[in-house]
């Protein structure tokens, strides 16, 4: 898993890595990764506690969470990263205190990342135009009705 992560990071050449000349150069490179690890530590408990094992293994869940992290890999502004980590920690807390319910976790961490991965698989180089992207996702041209 870790190897795969590192590999994919290396392939895309961005992500958890930020430009050194930036303001918070020293602090940022590890922040996202550290938080990701923090999340990972809670995953076995989460799977167990929310009875997700009927749906997903810890390993799969980790890769799903990873996909969600990767979604923001283009963000380089340290301020923004800080805010995202802050919000992420909020989320983590809600999960660990069981303020979230099972179906929340299922939609957000089981169903949605899977959809995301599928999209990524069908459009590997990001070769599609913006129009086609939004067409496929159904975002464009949805009627304003209701």
């Amino acid at each position, binding site marked *: 898993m870790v190897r795969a992560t590192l590999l994919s990071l290396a392939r895309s050449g961005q992500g958890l890595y930020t430009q050194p000349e930036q303001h918070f150069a020293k602090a940022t490179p590890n922040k996202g990764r550290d938080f990701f690890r923090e999340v990972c530590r809670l995953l076995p408990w989460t799977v167990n506690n929310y009875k997700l094992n009927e749906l997903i293994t810890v390993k799969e869940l980790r890769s799903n969470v990873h996909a969600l992290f990767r979604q923001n890999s283009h963000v380089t502004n340290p301020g923004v990263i800080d805010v995202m980590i802050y919000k992420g920690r909020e989320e983590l807390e809600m999960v660990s205190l069981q303020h979230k319910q099972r179906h929340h976790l299922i939609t957000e961490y089981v169903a949605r990342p899977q959809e995301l991965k599928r999209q990524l698989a*069908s*459009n590997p180089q990001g070769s*599609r*135009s*913006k*129009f*086609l992207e939004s*067409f*496929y996702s*159904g975002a*464009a*041209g*949805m*009627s*304003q*009705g*209701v």
Partner: protein
Amino acid sequence: MLSKLARTASRSRVQQNLLLPSILLPQQPFQSSAVTSQQAAPAEDHIEVKVNGSPVQIPKGSTVMQACDAAGIDIPRFCYHPKLSIAGNCRMCLVEVEKSPKPVASCAMPAAPNMNIKTDTDLVKKAREGVMEFLLINHPLDCPICDQGGECDLQEQSMHFGSDRSRFTEMKRSVHDKNLGPLVKTVMTRCIHCTRCVRFATEVAGVQDLGMVGRGKDSEIGTYIDKLLTSELSGNVIDLCPVGALTSKPAAFTYRNWELKNTETIDVSDAQGTNTRVDSRGVEVMRILPRLNEDVNEEWLSDKGRFQYDGLKQQRLNVPLVKGPDGAFAPKRWPEALEAVAQGLQGIAGNEMRAIAGKLSDAESMVALKDLMNKLGCGNLTSEGGFPDLDADVRSNYVANTTIRGIEGADVILLIGTNPRIEAPVYNARIRKTWLEGTQIGLVGPEYDLTYPYTHLGEGPDALAAMLGGSDFFQKLQEAQHPAVVLGPGILSRPDRDTILQQVHELVEKAGVVKEDWNGYNILHDAASRVAALDLGFLPSARAQSAPKPKFVYLLGSDDYSEEDIPEDAFVVYQGTHGDRGAPRANVILPAAAYVEKEGTFVNFEGRTQRTKAAVPMVGDSREDWRIIRAVSEVVGRPLPYDTTDGVQKRLADVAPHLGKVDAVESPIWLNGEYNKAFAERAAKAAEAFQQPFSSSIKEFFMTDAISRSSQVMARCIQSRKTGHPKSATHPGAFGQDAAAHAAADM
């Protein structure tokens, strides 16, 4: 004491500010007093009257009610309707006129010069209260279970003008409900005998089915015998009925009017472009009502346009489907489906393709498809059930040049091969209106009941030829100041069309149908997409005639294509809304939005550009039509240069400028000379006219396209028309009440 005073003061304010429902308000053709009082002298044909002390100028011959309307004062009313004759039988519109001993019914009283009208006196208040009291004596207290509740004139007016308590202790009268067929539900005890429905049926719809029987407290509204309301406009009596006596049967007990979201759009069930309001709740269309547009539909809507909406929930395509090697359809995601289209296109030359547009296609999707096909090197574009080789270079050649409103000015009308009653029922009501005003009407074609009498001149082309030789009716046409000729869509799809058009043109020429300031040449269409298709040039190119058999066919919502258009082995893409005829034939099915789910441009048969609006969201995973075509274009590697709604509409305006001018009619130039010459050449080539009689292009009014064919209500209409007996239309469990009873019985 003080509080009582305050209450009366606020009450009278309510009275003055009362807004009557728009359907009751007549057109206000007069200027308000504020404007006219600034003019120096009143015009010749105007008189001055006083309403509540302030002077107003009104045209001679107006009624007292019109004077009050001109003064901006709303008079309560039930029986008066601006589009119907004056009955004067509800007495709700009583006002006081100085020097008249009794209050007068303002809707029926002509205004005389210097009349002094008062609408806010105690006498008027008391009179209204009295009328309300009488009306409510026999009106049931069932507002909580009445479908009209919340939009009922009686409810509103009794709130504003009625007394606050009842003195009535006797039994109320009750009346048997009449069965008017599958569309109009009746609860006749609620009827207040305003006779609006009767007047509508006899005057506008032209059917003598409804009437009043009995006298006094025994009078009832009904169809004298147990009979269906056989009109294509019958649904309008629901709007007209001021109370809940006539309501919509398919929508019975399904909504309250305040829950509904209103979207102003247009109807596409025929080519008239009737202005409608779609009322929806959540994702569901609950009802469709006409909107007032004097130029198009006045206040009417055909039954098909009003009641076919249940077809929008049946047989819908909601995911892309791709036919597998075993011939079974499998649901697919959009990328895979579009990939399948691209694969189907592989190795196919441009001239081996064909695109067919359906009856309900909007202009946006047609222009996008045309651009895409042209990019792929294909010029073989046709409209279904159409006349692909019609000459679309001259616009006056394929629209109703007189315009829908303009036909009212005609003094002789010749209908050729058309049955406007089913091709465009609302237009037929206009023709009937001109007939009522004394216009003479002649028909060449099979005899239909058009709801007005006409001179029948023969059935087919021979009658046309005979007319040219000079007949009585021809003479009338010649002598008329404003003669009009209306050609039906049936003629345009005949194989001998050119010859017949040539004859008609000779007639038009000889009879002087086209004059300096009058163009009486009209073509009627039967499909909403047709005029836009012709405007955009969605027509086969010159080379398409010699093209080989198509191997790839793109059906844009086309279900009425002819078999020979699609060869056995062709790869077919169907883009549309319903699993009707086209979808099963297709290799790839792309689900699209129906007309209430998207913004689309349509052109009606007089050439008026109008747009639909999205009232409800699209079903499932469907997409707007032109976006699908845009996406296909990208997947096959020939992206179209526009990808926003504005972009495609701009492209529309580039191709045909009048498509950019919404709600306007661009009157086409009459290219008489050149036009006839071209026809003469072509007709010389064309064969002799066949002797088979003309016929309408529509076989069954209630089922003309994918939506109406999927509608159960429309099916019920056909069923009940067959027997002419209303009962045959009700099958168990069809409507709310029955369904509930049925469910109970099943348990």
